[in-house]
C-alpha cells in the first residue's frame, strides 16, 4: 500500500488551512418591518416572507 513519504510540516498543514474560513451570514432588511433578518427566511420579527404573513409572532 502507498504511504506518505514525509510528515506534512506545520507550515504546509497551516498553508492548506488558510482557506478554511467562516463566511458571514447573508443578511437582508425585512421588506415588511425593516428589521434585519436572514435572507430567504421568514422574518422572525413580523413573520412575513415575500409579502405574505407566515405566522403571527408572539407578544
Amino acid at each position, binding site marked *: 500500500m502507498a504511504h506518505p513519504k514525509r510528515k506534512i510540516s506545520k507550515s504546509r498543514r497551516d498553508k492548506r488551512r488558510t482557506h478554511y474560513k467562516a463566511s458571514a451570514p447573508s443578511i437582508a432588511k425585512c421588506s415588511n418591518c425593516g428589521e434585519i433578518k*436572514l435572507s*430567504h*427566511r*421568514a422574518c*422572525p420579527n413580523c*413573520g412575513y*416572507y*415575500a409579502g*405574505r*404573513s*407566515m*405566522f*403571527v409572532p408572539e407578544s
Partner: protein
Amino acid sequence: MRHRVKGRKLSRTASHRLATLRSLSTALLKHKKIKTTVAKAKETRTFVEPLITKAKDDSVAARRHVARHIKDKEVVKELFGEIVEKIGDRAGGYTRVVKLGSRPGDGADMAILELVDFNSVTDKKVKTEAEPKAEKTTKAKKSEQPKAKVKEEDVVEAEVIEETKEETKAEESVSEETTEDKKEEKK
C-alpha cells in the same frame, strides 16, 4: 456520483420514514400549515402532492388509495371535499415551504409547510375584526344544532360552519405549530 439517488433518509429506517411522512402529511392536510425541519418539509411535499393530485379524481378507488396513507378518515373526507375544491385547478404545486431559521436547542433548520390556497394568517387588523363575528356564530350554532337537522337549514348552516372552521384554524395554527415542535422533539 449521486446519480439516481433520490430523496432523504431522514435518519430513519424505511418503515419509520414512511410512518413519519404519513403522519406529517395527515397533519398538513388537517391543519393546512405545519412547522417542521426543512428536510422533513421538503420530503413531505413530495409525498403529499401526488396524493392531492390523486384526490382530484373522486372515485372509490382514489379514496382508498389515499386512505392507505392518510389514516384519519375525517382528513380524507376533507381532502376530497374542501381541499380539492379550493386547490383543484392547480396543476401541482399545492404546497409552499418557507424557511424560518434554526431551532434553539439543536440548531435544526426549521420551515413552515403549508397548503398554498390556505394561507390563513392574515393581518392582525383583519383578524381582530373577523374574530368576534366568528365566535358569535359558533355559539349560536351549538345551541341550534341538536334541534335543527332540517334539510333547508342544513344548506345555510354548512356554509357558515366552513367559514368559522377556517377562522378558528387560523387562531389555532400558531399554537399547533408549537405542539408540532414538541412532537418532533419526542421523536
